[in-house]
Protein backbone atom coordinates (compact mmCIF):
# COMPACT_ATOMS: atom_id res chain seq x y z
CA UNK A 1 0.00 0.00 0.00
CA UNK A 2 2.68 2.46 1.08
CA UNK A 3 5.03 1.30 -1.63
CA UNK A 4 2.30 1.78 -4.21
CA UNK A 5 1.71 5.28 -2.90
CA UNK A 6 5.43 6.02 -3.09
CA UNK A 7 5.55 4.61 -6.59
CA UNK A 8 2.71 6.91 -7.61
CA UNK A 9 4.50 9.92 -6.14
CA UNK A 10 7.71 8.86 -7.85
CA UNK A 11 5.88 8.45 -11.14
CA UNK A 12 4.34 11.89 -10.83
CA UNK A 13 7.75 13.42 -10.17
CA UNK A 14 9.17 11.54 -13.11
CA UNK A 15 6.42 12.92 -15.32
CA UNK A 16 6.98 16.43 -14.01
CA UNK A 17 10.72 16.20 -14.56
CA UNK A 18 10.11 14.88 -18.08
CA UNK A 19 7.83 17.77 -18.95
CA UNK A 20 9.89 20.51 -17.32
CA UNK A 21 13.01 19.12 -18.99
CA UNK A 22 11.15 18.75 -22.26
CA UNK A 23 9.91 22.33 -22.21
CA UNK A 24 13.42 23.62 -21.54
CA UNK A 25 14.78 21.43 -24.34
CA UNK A 26 12.10 22.71 -26.68
CA UNK A 27 13.02 26.30 -25.83
CA UNK A 28 16.69 25.57 -26.50
CA UNK A 29 15.89 23.89 -29.81
CA UNK A 30 13.85 26.91 -30.85
CA UNK A 31 16.53 29.38 -29.80
CA UNK A 32 19.21 27.44 -31.63
CA UNK A 33 17.19 27.61 -34.83
CA UNK A 34 16.53 31.31 -34.34
CA UNK A 35 20.25 32.14 -34.64
CA UNK A 36 20.45 33.12 -37.40
CA UNK A 37 16.72 33.60 -37.76
CA UNK A 38 15.24 31.49 -40.52
CA UNK A 39 11.67 30.36 -40.73
CA UNK A 40 9.50 28.99 -43.46
CA UNK A 41 7.89 32.18 -44.80
CA UNK A 42 4.52 30.85 -46.00
CA UNK A 43 4.08 28.72 -42.87
CA UNK A 44 4.79 31.73 -40.65
CA UNK A 45 2.30 33.95 -42.47
CA UNK A 46 -0.32 31.23 -42.41
CA UNK A 47 0.15 30.84 -38.67
CA UNK A 48 0.10 34.56 -37.94
CA UNK A 49 -3.18 34.79 -39.79
CA UNK A 50 -4.72 31.72 -38.19
CA UNK A 51 -3.66 32.61 -34.67
CA UNK A 52 -4.86 36.18 -35.06
CA UNK A 53 -8.20 35.35 -36.60
CA UNK A 54 -8.88 32.59 -34.13
CA UNK A 55 -8.23 34.60 -31.01
CA UNK A 56 -9.23 38.15 -31.94
CA UNK A 57 -12.98 38.03 -31.24
CA UNK A 58 -12.69 36.17 -27.96
CA UNK A 59 -9.94 38.46 -26.74
CA UNK A 60 -11.96 41.57 -27.51
CA UNK A 61 -14.98 40.25 -25.61
CA UNK A 62 -12.85 39.15 -22.67
CA UNK A 63 -11.04 42.46 -22.56
CA UNK A 64 -14.17 44.61 -22.73
CA UNK A 65 -15.76 42.74 -19.84
CA UNK A 66 -12.56 42.76 -17.83
CA UNK A 67 -12.43 46.55 -18.07
CA UNK A 68 -16.08 46.81 -17.11
CA UNK A 69 -15.64 44.53 -14.11
CA UNK A 70 -12.63 46.46 -12.86
CA UNK A 71 -14.69 49.66 -12.93
CA UNK A 72 -17.66 48.08 -11.18
CA UNK A 73 -15.39 46.71 -8.46
CA UNK A 74 -13.81 50.08 -7.79
CA UNK A 75 -17.21 51.79 -8.03
CA UNK A 76 -17.98 51.26 -4.36
CA UNK A 77 -14.93 53.12 -3.12
CA UNK A 78 -15.15 55.75 -5.81
CA UNK A 79 -18.64 56.61 -4.67
CA UNK A 80 -17.79 56.40 -0.98
CA UNK A 81 -14.81 58.71 -1.17
CA UNK A 82 -15.94 60.82 -4.09
CA UNK A 83 -12.79 59.99 -5.95
CA UNK A 84 -14.25 59.97 -9.47
CA UNK A 85 -11.01 61.48 -10.72
CA UNK A 86 -9.12 58.33 -9.77
CA UNK A 87 -11.41 55.81 -11.47
CA UNK A 88 -9.52 55.76 -14.77
CA UNK A 89 -6.19 55.46 -13.02
CA UNK A 90 -7.35 52.70 -10.69
CA UNK A 91 -8.89 50.59 -13.43
CA UNK A 92 -6.18 51.40 -15.98
CA UNK A 93 -3.28 50.62 -13.68
CA UNK A 94 -4.45 47.12 -12.86
CA UNK A 95 -5.67 46.40 -16.38
CA UNK A 96 -2.45 47.41 -18.06
CA UNK A 97 -0.06 45.91 -15.58
CA UNK A 98 -1.81 42.78 -14.47
CA UNK A 99 -5.33 41.82 -15.36
CA UNK A 100 -5.10 42.47 -19.10
CA UNK A 101 -2.08 40.31 -19.85
CA UNK A 102 -3.22 37.53 -17.50
CA UNK A 103 -6.79 37.29 -18.75
CA UNK A 104 -5.80 37.54 -22.37
CA UNK A 105 -2.91 35.12 -21.85
CA UNK A 106 -5.23 32.55 -20.30
CA UNK A 107 -7.79 32.92 -23.08
CA UNK A 108 -5.03 32.67 -25.65
CA UNK A 109 -3.68 29.50 -24.08
CA UNK A 110 -7.16 27.93 -24.01
CA UNK A 111 -7.80 28.84 -27.61
CA UNK A 112 -4.55 28.89 -29.53
CA UNK A 113 -2.28 26.83 -27.26
CA UNK A 114 -4.79 24.01 -26.90
CA UNK A 115 -5.43 24.00 -30.62
CA UNK A 116 -1.72 23.89 -31.32
CA UNK A 117 -1.14 20.94 -29.00
CA UNK A 118 -4.07 19.07 -30.56
CA UNK A 119 -2.82 19.73 -34.06
CA UNK A 120 0.78 18.71 -33.46
CA UNK A 121 -0.37 15.77 -31.34
CA UNK A 122 -2.60 14.51 -34.12
CA UNK A 123 0.25 14.85 -36.57
CA UNK A 124 2.35 12.87 -34.15
CA UNK A 125 -0.03 9.93 -33.70
CA UNK A 126 -0.84 9.73 -37.41
CA UNK A 127 2.87 9.58 -38.33
CA UNK A 128 2.77 12.93 -40.14
CA UNK A 129 5.73 14.12 -38.06
CA UNK A 130 7.68 11.00 -39.00
CA UNK A 131 6.69 11.56 -42.63
CA UNK A 132 8.19 15.05 -42.44
CA UNK A 133 11.37 13.70 -40.91
CA UNK A 134 11.53 10.98 -43.54
CA UNK A 135 11.46 13.76 -46.14
CA UNK A 136 14.48 15.35 -44.45
CA UNK A 137 12.43 18.15 -42.91
CA UNK A 138 13.14 19.17 -39.35
CA UNK A 139 9.76 19.37 -37.58
CA UNK A 140 11.02 22.05 -35.19
CA UNK A 141 12.11 24.38 -38.01
CA UNK A 142 9.12 23.65 -40.18
CA UNK A 143 6.29 23.45 -37.66
CA UNK A 144 7.43 24.87 -34.33
CA UNK A 145 9.34 28.01 -35.31
CA UNK A 146 6.47 29.52 -37.37
CA UNK A 147 4.04 28.80 -34.53
CA UNK A 148 6.43 30.23 -31.97
CA UNK A 149 6.84 33.45 -33.92
CA UNK A 150 3.12 33.72 -34.61
CA UNK A 151 2.11 33.16 -31.00
CA UNK A 152 4.66 35.56 -29.57
CA UNK A 153 3.77 38.38 -31.96
CA UNK A 154 0.03 37.80 -31.86
CA UNK A 155 -0.29 37.61 -28.10
CA UNK A 156 1.66 40.85 -27.79
CA UNK A 157 -0.58 42.57 -30.34
CA UNK A 158 -3.68 41.13 -28.72
CA UNK A 159 -2.67 42.45 -25.32
CA UNK A 160 -2.12 45.93 -26.75
CA UNK A 161 -5.47 45.89 -28.51
CA UNK A 162 -7.09 44.19 -25.53
CA UNK A 163 -5.73 46.87 -23.16
CA UNK A 164 -7.39 49.57 -25.23
CA UNK A 165 -10.63 47.63 -25.44
CA UNK A 166 -10.63 47.07 -21.70
CA UNK A 167 -10.07 50.77 -21.04
CA UNK A 168 -12.95 51.65 -23.36
CA UNK A 169 -15.14 48.98 -21.74
CA UNK A 170 -14.29 50.50 -18.36
CA UNK A 171 -15.07 53.99 -19.57
CA UNK A 172 -18.49 53.01 -20.85
CA UNK A 173 -19.34 51.18 -17.65
CA UNK A 174 -18.13 54.11 -15.57
CA UNK A 175 -20.30 56.47 -17.54
CA UNK A 176 -23.43 54.30 -17.52
CA UNK A 177 -23.31 52.69 -14.07
CA UNK A 178 -21.33 55.15 -11.97
CA UNK A 179 -22.02 58.36 -13.82
CA UNK A 180 -18.34 59.16 -14.14
CA UNK A 181 -17.77 61.32 -17.19
CA UNK A 182 -15.69 59.58 -19.86
CA UNK A 183 -13.51 62.65 -20.13
CA UNK A 184 -12.69 62.60 -16.44
CA UNK A 185 -11.96 58.90 -16.72
CA UNK A 186 -9.55 59.25 -19.61
CA UNK A 187 -7.96 62.36 -18.16
CA UNK A 188 -6.93 60.44 -15.09
CA UNK A 189 -5.53 57.72 -17.30
CA UNK A 190 -3.50 60.15 -19.36
CA UNK A 191 -2.11 62.06 -16.39
CA UNK A 192 -1.53 59.23 -13.92
CA UNK A 193 -0.70 56.16 -15.99
CA UNK A 194 2.94 55.98 -17.02
CA UNK A 195 4.46 54.46 -20.10
CA UNK A 196 6.09 51.97 -17.76
CA UNK A 197 2.67 50.71 -16.63
CA UNK A 198 1.76 49.99 -20.22
CA UNK A 199 5.13 48.52 -21.16
CA UNK A 200 5.34 46.17 -18.22
CA UNK A 201 2.10 44.59 -19.43
CA UNK A 202 3.51 44.31 -22.93
CA UNK A 203 6.69 42.64 -21.66
CA UNK A 204 4.54 40.14 -19.81
CA UNK A 205 2.60 39.45 -22.99
CA UNK A 206 5.80 38.64 -24.85
CA UNK A 207 6.89 36.28 -22.07
CA UNK A 208 3.46 34.60 -21.89
CA UNK A 209 3.47 34.17 -25.68
CA UNK A 210 6.85 32.46 -25.54
CA UNK A 211 5.73 30.23 -22.66
CA UNK A 212 2.46 29.19 -24.29
CA UNK A 213 4.16 28.48 -27.61
CA UNK A 214 6.96 26.41 -26.12
CA UNK A 215 4.68 24.50 -23.74
CA UNK A 216 1.99 23.75 -26.31
CA UNK A 217 4.57 22.57 -28.85
CA UNK A 218 6.31 20.37 -26.28
CA UNK A 219 3.08 18.66 -25.24
CA UNK A 220 2.00 18.27 -28.87
CA UNK A 221 5.24 16.70 -30.04
CA UNK A 222 5.46 14.24 -27.15
CA UNK A 223 1.98 12.75 -27.56
CA UNK A 224 1.77 8.98 -27.28
CA UNK A 225 -1.17 6.67 -27.46
CA UNK A 226 -3.60 7.73 -30.15
CA UNK A 227 -6.60 10.00 -29.75
CA UNK A 228 -6.71 9.48 -25.98
CA UNK A 229 -3.12 10.64 -25.79
CA UNK A 230 -3.95 13.77 -27.77
CA UNK A 231 -6.78 14.63 -25.37
CA UNK A 232 -4.52 14.15 -22.37
CA UNK A 233 -1.79 16.26 -23.93
CA UNK A 234 -4.19 19.14 -24.64
CA UNK A 235 -5.32 19.03 -21.05
CA UNK A 236 -1.79 19.03 -19.68
CA UNK A 237 -0.75 21.75 -22.07
CA UNK A 238 -3.48 24.14 -20.90
CA UNK A 239 -2.82 23.45 -17.22
CA UNK A 240 0.94 23.85 -17.65
CA UNK A 241 0.47 27.09 -19.59
CA UNK A 242 -1.77 28.52 -16.87
CA UNK A 243 0.76 27.64 -14.19
CA UNK A 244 3.57 29.10 -16.26
CA UNK A 245 1.60 32.32 -16.77
CA UNK A 246 1.14 32.83 -13.04
CA UNK A 247 4.70 31.92 -12.13
CA UNK A 248 6.16 34.17 -14.83
CA UNK A 249 3.79 36.93 -13.79
CA UNK A 250 4.88 36.63 -10.18
CA UNK A 251 8.54 37.04 -11.03
CA UNK A 252 8.04 39.77 -13.60
CA UNK A 253 5.78 41.76 -11.30
CA UNK A 254 8.36 41.47 -8.58
CA UNK A 255 11.15 42.53 -10.96
CA UNK A 256 9.28 45.45 -12.50
CA UNK A 257 7.55 47.08 -9.52
Amino acid at each position, binding site marked *: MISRGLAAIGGAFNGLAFDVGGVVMMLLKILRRCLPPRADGPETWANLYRVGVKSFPIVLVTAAFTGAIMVIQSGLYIKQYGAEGLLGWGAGYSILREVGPIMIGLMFSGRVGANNTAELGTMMVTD*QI*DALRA*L*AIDPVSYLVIPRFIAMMIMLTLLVVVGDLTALVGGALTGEVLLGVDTRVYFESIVTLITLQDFLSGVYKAVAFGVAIAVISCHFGLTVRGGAVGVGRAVNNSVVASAIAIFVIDYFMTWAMQ
Partner: protein
Amino acid sequence: MTLLSALGPGDPMIRVEGITKYYLGATVLDGVTLDIPSGSNLGLMGPGGAGKSLLLKIIAGLVEPDQGRVLVDGHDVGTLDAHKLAQLRFNIGMVFQNYALFDSMNVGENIAFPLRQRGGVPEEEIQARVREQLALVGLPGIAHQYPRELSGGMKKRVSFCRAVIPAPPLLFYDDPTAGLDPVTSSKIFIHLRRMQQDGGTTAITISHDIDGIKPICDRFALLDHGRLVFHGTRDEIEASDDRLVRQFWDGFSDD
Protein backbone atom coordinates in the same frame (compact mmCIF):
# COMPACT_ATOMS: atom_id res chain seq x y z
CA MET B 1 23.01 3.76 -57.87
CA THR B 2 25.18 5.03 -55.07
CA LEU B 3 23.89 7.40 -52.45
CA LEU B 4 26.57 9.13 -50.49
CA SER B 5 29.57 6.93 -51.04
CA ALA B 6 30.65 3.88 -52.97
CA LEU B 7 30.02 0.57 -51.29
CA GLY B 8 32.63 -2.12 -51.42
CA PRO B 9 31.80 -4.97 -53.78
CA GLY B 10 29.44 -7.39 -52.11
CA ASP B 11 28.52 -4.97 -49.34
CA PRO B 12 24.78 -4.86 -48.75
CA MET B 13 22.88 -1.62 -49.35
CA ILE B 14 21.23 -2.04 -45.97
CA ARG B 15 22.73 -3.89 -43.03
CA VAL B 16 20.73 -4.37 -39.84
CA GLU B 17 22.87 -5.47 -36.91
CA GLY B 18 21.41 -6.78 -33.68
CA ILE B 19 18.54 -4.31 -33.45
CA THR B 20 16.79 -4.49 -30.10
CA LYS B 21 14.02 -2.21 -28.90
CA TYR B 22 12.14 -2.12 -25.61
CA TYR B 23 8.82 -0.47 -24.95
CA LEU B 24 7.61 -0.18 -21.38
CA GLY B 25 9.68 -3.15 -20.25
CA ALA B 26 8.62 -5.39 -23.14
CA THR B 27 11.12 -6.45 -25.79
CA VAL B 28 9.43 -5.57 -29.08
CA LEU B 29 12.48 -6.21 -31.26
CA ASP B 30 15.02 -8.74 -30.20
CA GLY B 31 18.43 -8.78 -31.88
CA VAL B 32 17.25 -8.51 -35.47
CA THR B 33 20.10 -8.94 -37.95
CA LEU B 34 19.74 -8.99 -41.71
CA ASP B 35 21.34 -7.78 -44.95
CA ILE B 36 19.62 -6.36 -47.98
CA PRO B 37 21.73 -6.40 -51.15
CA SER B 38 21.61 -3.46 -53.48
CA GLY B 39 18.82 -3.73 -56.05
CA SER B 40 16.80 -6.34 -54.21
CA ASN B 41 13.35 -6.19 -52.70
CA LEU B 42 12.89 -7.73 -49.29
CA GLY B 43 9.43 -9.00 -48.44
CA LEU B 44 8.93 -8.58 -44.69
CA MET B 45 6.18 -10.75 -43.24
CA GLY B 46 4.89 -11.55 -39.81
CA PRO B 47 1.83 -11.58 -37.58
CA GLY B 48 0.28 -8.33 -36.37
CA GLY B 49 2.33 -6.71 -33.65
CA ALA B 50 5.47 -8.65 -34.57
CA GLY B 51 7.44 -5.41 -34.91
CA LYS B 52 7.57 -4.99 -38.70
CA SER B 53 6.54 -1.33 -38.81
CA LEU B 54 8.85 -0.52 -35.94
CA LEU B 55 11.79 -2.24 -37.65
CA LEU B 56 11.12 -0.27 -40.81
CA LYS B 57 11.09 3.01 -38.86
CA ILE B 58 14.35 2.09 -37.19
CA ILE B 59 15.94 1.31 -40.57
CA ALA B 60 14.73 4.67 -41.86
CA GLY B 61 16.34 6.36 -38.85
CA LEU B 62 13.02 7.61 -37.50
CA VAL B 63 13.20 5.64 -34.26
CA GLU B 64 16.36 4.99 -32.29
CA PRO B 65 17.04 1.39 -31.36
CA ASP B 66 18.08 0.56 -27.81
CA GLN B 67 20.79 -1.77 -29.10
CA GLY B 68 22.35 -2.51 -32.45
CA ARG B 69 22.85 -0.34 -35.49
CA VAL B 70 21.68 0.15 -39.04
CA LEU B 71 24.06 0.77 -41.92
CA VAL B 72 22.57 2.24 -45.06
CA ASP B 73 24.97 2.47 -47.97
CA GLY B 74 27.77 1.88 -45.52
CA HIS B 75 26.78 4.71 -43.16
CA ASP B 76 25.71 4.15 -39.58
CA VAL B 77 22.32 5.88 -39.55
CA GLY B 78 22.55 6.52 -35.82
CA THR B 79 25.75 8.55 -36.01
CA LEU B 80 25.17 10.65 -39.13
CA ASP B 81 25.13 14.40 -38.53
CA ALA B 82 22.03 16.34 -39.49
CA HIS B 83 23.31 17.28 -42.93
CA LYS B 84 24.33 13.76 -43.92
CA LEU B 85 21.11 12.35 -42.51
CA ALA B 86 19.12 14.80 -44.61
CA GLN B 87 21.09 13.75 -47.69
CA LEU B 88 20.40 10.12 -46.94
CA ARG B 89 16.71 10.81 -46.50
CA PHE B 90 16.52 12.46 -49.90
CA ASN B 91 17.26 8.98 -51.16
CA ILE B 92 14.46 7.28 -49.26
CA GLY B 93 10.79 7.07 -50.13
CA MET B 94 8.47 5.73 -47.49
CA VAL B 95 4.86 4.58 -47.44
CA PHE B 96 3.56 4.61 -43.87
CA GLN B 97 1.14 2.00 -42.65
CA ASN B 98 -1.40 4.65 -41.70
CA TYR B 99 -0.72 6.84 -44.77
CA ALA B 100 0.68 9.84 -42.85
CA LEU B 101 -0.70 12.26 -45.43
CA PHE B 102 -0.48 15.91 -44.41
CA ASP B 103 -4.00 16.96 -43.36
CA SER B 104 -3.40 20.58 -44.17
CA MET B 105 -2.51 19.92 -47.81
CA ASN B 106 -4.62 18.59 -50.63
CA VAL B 107 -3.70 15.44 -52.53
CA GLY B 108 -1.74 17.27 -55.21
CA GLU B 109 0.23 19.27 -52.65
CA ASN B 110 0.94 16.14 -50.65
CA ILE B 111 2.34 14.31 -53.65
CA ALA B 112 4.27 17.32 -54.90
CA PHE B 113 5.70 18.06 -51.46
CA PRO B 114 8.93 16.02 -51.75
CA LEU B 115 9.70 17.59 -55.13
CA ARG B 116 8.98 21.13 -53.94
CA GLN B 117 11.00 20.53 -50.79
CA ARG B 118 14.02 19.39 -52.78
CA GLY B 119 13.66 22.21 -55.25
CA GLY B 120 15.03 22.43 -58.75
CA VAL B 121 12.00 20.97 -60.53
CA PRO B 122 9.95 23.47 -62.57
CA GLU B 123 6.35 23.89 -61.49
CA GLU B 124 4.83 22.60 -64.75
CA GLU B 125 6.89 19.46 -64.53
CA ILE B 126 5.79 18.94 -60.92
CA GLN B 127 2.14 19.25 -61.97
CA ALA B 128 2.64 16.85 -64.85
CA ARG B 129 4.37 14.28 -62.67
CA VAL B 130 1.67 14.50 -60.01
CA ARG B 131 -1.00 13.87 -62.67
CA GLU B 132 1.00 10.99 -64.10
CA GLN B 133 1.45 9.35 -60.68
CA LEU B 134 -2.22 9.67 -59.81
CA ALA B 135 -3.20 8.13 -63.14
CA LEU B 136 -0.81 5.25 -62.56
CA VAL B 137 -2.53 4.28 -59.32
CA GLY B 138 -5.99 4.70 -60.82
CA LEU B 139 -6.93 7.97 -59.15
CA PRO B 140 -6.93 10.58 -61.91
CA GLY B 141 -8.34 13.99 -61.13
CA ILE B 142 -8.39 13.91 -57.33
CA ALA B 143 -5.46 16.31 -56.87
CA HIS B 144 -7.68 19.04 -55.42
CA GLN B 145 -9.30 16.82 -52.81
CA TYR B 146 -8.17 16.71 -49.18
CA PRO B 147 -7.05 13.55 -47.35
CA ARG B 148 -10.13 13.70 -45.08
CA GLU B 149 -12.34 13.24 -48.16
CA LEU B 150 -10.66 9.99 -49.22
CA SER B 151 -11.21 6.36 -48.33
CA GLY B 152 -8.47 4.33 -46.67
CA GLY B 153 -7.47 2.63 -49.89
CA MET B 154 -7.34 5.95 -51.74
CA LYS B 155 -5.13 7.47 -49.03
CA LYS B 156 -2.83 4.47 -49.29
CA ARG B 157 -2.40 5.06 -53.01
CA VAL B 158 -1.79 8.79 -52.54
CA SER B 159 0.81 7.94 -49.92
CA PHE B 160 2.39 5.58 -52.44
CA CYS B 161 2.55 8.38 -55.03
CA ARG B 162 4.19 10.74 -52.56
CA ALA B 163 6.85 8.16 -51.73
CA VAL B 164 7.78 7.26 -55.30
CA ILE B 165 7.48 10.61 -57.08
CA PRO B 166 11.12 11.70 -56.55
CA ALA B 167 12.20 8.24 -57.79
CA PRO B 168 14.39 7.57 -54.75
CA PRO B 169 16.86 4.68 -54.88
CA LEU B 170 15.56 3.32 -51.56
CA LEU B 171 11.89 2.54 -51.02
CA PHE B 172 10.24 1.37 -47.83
CA TYR B 173 6.64 0.24 -48.14
CA ASP B 174 4.60 -0.53 -45.05
CA ASP B 175 1.70 -2.57 -46.37
CA PRO B 176 1.31 -0.65 -49.65
CA THR B 177 -1.78 -2.56 -50.73
CA ALA B 178 -3.71 -2.72 -47.46
CA GLY B 179 -7.35 -1.96 -48.04
CA LEU B 180 -7.08 -2.20 -51.82
CA ASP B 181 -9.15 -4.34 -54.13
CA PRO B 182 -7.23 -7.15 -55.90
CA VAL B 183 -7.09 -5.33 -59.23
CA THR B 184 -5.65 -2.08 -57.85
CA SER B 185 -3.45 -4.08 -55.58
CA SER B 186 -1.81 -5.94 -58.43
CA LYS B 187 -1.42 -2.65 -60.32
CA ILE B 188 0.55 -1.28 -57.38
CA PHE B 189 2.70 -4.39 -57.14
CA ILE B 190 3.44 -4.30 -60.87
CA HIS B 191 4.36 -0.62 -60.64
CA LEU B 192 6.58 -1.43 -57.70
CA ARG B 193 8.38 -4.17 -59.54
CA ARG B 194 8.87 -2.02 -62.61
CA MET B 195 10.59 0.66 -60.52
CA GLN B 196 12.92 -1.95 -59.14
CA GLN B 197 13.73 -3.47 -62.52
CA ASP B 198 14.08 -0.20 -64.42
CA GLY B 199 15.46 2.01 -61.70
CA GLY B 200 17.42 -0.51 -59.71
CA THR B 201 15.80 0.54 -56.44
CA THR B 202 16.43 -1.31 -53.23
CA ALA B 203 13.20 -1.90 -51.36
CA ILE B 204 11.63 -3.33 -48.26
CA THR B 205 8.00 -4.34 -48.63
CA ILE B 206 5.94 -5.19 -45.57
CA SER B 207 2.78 -6.97 -46.55
CA HIS B 208 0.13 -9.35 -45.32
CA ASP B 209 -0.63 -10.17 -48.95
CA ILE B 210 1.86 -13.01 -49.28
CA ASP B 211 0.70 -14.06 -52.73
CA GLY B 212 1.05 -10.45 -53.81
CA ILE B 213 4.67 -10.11 -52.74
CA LYS B 214 5.80 -13.57 -53.84
CA PRO B 215 6.38 -12.49 -57.44
CA ILE B 216 7.85 -9.06 -56.71
CA CYS B 217 10.31 -9.77 -53.90
CA ASP B 218 13.52 -11.72 -54.23
CA ARG B 219 14.30 -12.04 -50.55
CA PHE B 220 12.00 -12.70 -47.64
CA ALA B 221 12.07 -12.27 -43.89
CA LEU B 222 9.63 -13.40 -41.24
CA LEU B 223 9.35 -11.60 -37.95
CA ASP B 224 7.52 -13.03 -34.96
CA HIS B 225 7.30 -11.42 -31.53
CA GLY B 226 10.24 -9.20 -32.36
CA ARG B 227 12.50 -12.08 -33.42
CA LEU B 228 13.62 -12.82 -36.93
CA VAL B 229 12.39 -16.35 -37.55
CA PHE B 230 13.56 -16.53 -41.14
CA HIS B 231 15.64 -14.50 -43.55
CA GLY B 232 16.74 -15.65 -46.98
CA THR B 233 16.07 -16.10 -50.66
CA ARG B 234 13.01 -17.55 -52.33
CA ASP B 235 14.63 -20.97 -52.70
CA GLU B 236 15.55 -20.97 -49.05
CA ILE B 237 12.08 -20.05 -47.88
CA GLU B 238 10.54 -22.72 -50.06
CA ALA B 239 12.85 -25.28 -48.50
CA SER B 240 12.39 -24.09 -44.91
CA ASP B 241 10.66 -26.45 -42.55
CA ASP B 242 9.94 -23.88 -39.83
CA ARG B 243 6.30 -24.22 -38.87
CA LEU B 244 5.48 -20.50 -38.91
CA VAL B 245 7.32 -20.00 -42.20
CA ARG B 246 5.29 -22.78 -43.79
CA GLN B 247 2.06 -21.32 -42.40
CA PHE B 248 2.81 -17.91 -43.87
CA TRP B 249 4.23 -19.10 -47.14
CA ASP B 250 1.67 -21.79 -47.88
CA GLY B 251 -1.16 -19.79 -46.38
CA PHE B 252 -2.80 -22.19 -43.94
CA SER B 253 -3.18 -22.55 -40.23
CA ASP B 254 -2.92 -25.92 -38.58
CA ASP B 255 -4.80 -25.17 -35.41
